[in-house]
């Protein structure tokens, strides 16, 4: 790891196992996002299950952009967005654009947001959820040349905001333990 040599200090020898460990910890945010996205498509037989995909994707991208931007760089966000389009049967490009805008704004407001408490971050995320649902609605309507009903977009925004705390609690724990590259 070239980056490790830039900081002075005593550290364990860089064995293969250790390097794999560090790589896995770096890949955790993107990996668990993709895994969760695939999981939402599993046939659980829940009503309106399709709205879970945008909810989970947005919550993951927002959380990791805010708390570990190094592990959620724009190219990864773009790829997640592409997968989101393909899994969610949206016109191509809607997912990458929405997620990149969320990622960019989360990064821009990171100095403020990361100092706030859990409830405030959640409240900010609710705003992001409404904005993302609205952007998705506008883009999908434009790209398919038709007026779409507001209901699904509103439901999507509500569900996205509601899903966040459950995921964030898990991610905060992972962020401090198994996904922390410092602990490798």
């Amino acid at each position, binding site marked *: 790891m070239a980056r490790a040599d830039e900081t002075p200090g005593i550290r364990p020898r860089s064995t293969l196992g250790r390097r794999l460990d560090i790589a896995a910890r770096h890949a955790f945010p993107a990996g668990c996002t993709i895994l969760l996205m695939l999981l939402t498509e599993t046939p659980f037989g829940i009503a309106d299950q399709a709205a879970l995909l945008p909810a989970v994707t947005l919550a993951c991208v927002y959380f990791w952009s805010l708390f570990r931007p190094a592990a959620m760089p724009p190219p990864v966000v773009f790829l997640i967005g592409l997968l989101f389009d393909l899994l969610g049967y949206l016109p191509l490009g809607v997912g990458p654009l929405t997620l990149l805008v969320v990622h960019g704004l989360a990064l821009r407001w990171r100095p403020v947001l990361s100092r706030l408490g859990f409830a405030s971050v959640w409240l900010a995320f609710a705003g992001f959820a409404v904005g993302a649902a609205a952007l998705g609605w506008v883009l*999908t309507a434009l790209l398919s040349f038709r007026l779409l009903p507001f209901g699904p977009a509103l439901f999507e925004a509500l569900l996205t905001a509601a899903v966040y705390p459950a995921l964030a609690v898990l991610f905060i724990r992972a962020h401090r333990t198994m996904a922390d590259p410092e602990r490798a």
Partner: protein
Amino acid sequence: MIRLSIQARQALAKLTLPVLIAASFGLMLLGKADALLAEHARMALADALAPIYAGLAEPLAGLRDTIAGATDLWDIQAENAQLRDENERLRRWQSIALALDAENQRLKANLRWIPDPAPSYVTARVVADAGGVYAKAVLLSVGPNHGIRKGEIALDERGLVGRVTEVGARTARVLLLTDLNSRIPVILENSRAHAILVGTNGARPRLTYWAEGAMPQEGERVVTSAEAGAFPANLPVGTVHFSAANVPEVVPAAMLDRLEIVRIFDYGLGGVAAPEAPGRLSERRER
């Protein structure tokens, strides 16, 4: 790896986001210009994922059945009595139906009626919900060399489900009749009036364009019409129900929220291309 100065690296890092946002707009244009590309990518992904979902579907269905079985135990006695009652009623109807069927056959024989050709069909398991926020569809797992084509008609044991819109190597996507893009020519059974069934993404599609003076009646059966050659005649679609806002809607006969197994019928029709789901304009150019 090329060694760059810190300033150059920082400038590059700052550029990534705008460049990728521009790339997303490019992707939208590409998706519009070549809709087949998106469709192929989708079906390739679905083909790759379908075996996993199919493998998971069975234990999940088992779990659901166990939970449903536990709740059913509570009201098993009342249900039994109700079922016995219903069975009696259905037996009477069965004898009527058999008599009518025999009579129908006799009349058709007298009229030299040319019977409709028996359609061929394949049965497939529903492996995943292939809808999105703005679409209602299901993904079917079909074997390789399935021979399913776009525009074929999906039915479950009770009635019409929808039409095949995309076909992959091992999967097929069926757009449900409740989807926003679904338009189905139907006949109201009592008045024999034509109408169009319009999907709304809700549980009950709306009836529109019925003939003047042939108002749909509450509880009236709705069947498909052979008009335009998109559907064969007389497939059961559902029953008319008036919403609170007094809009005639159709309660689908098929159990669209709990689809497990559907049959895909090939009636050899090619009248109207399958409806376009959002983001797809492929059908017309492909022909």
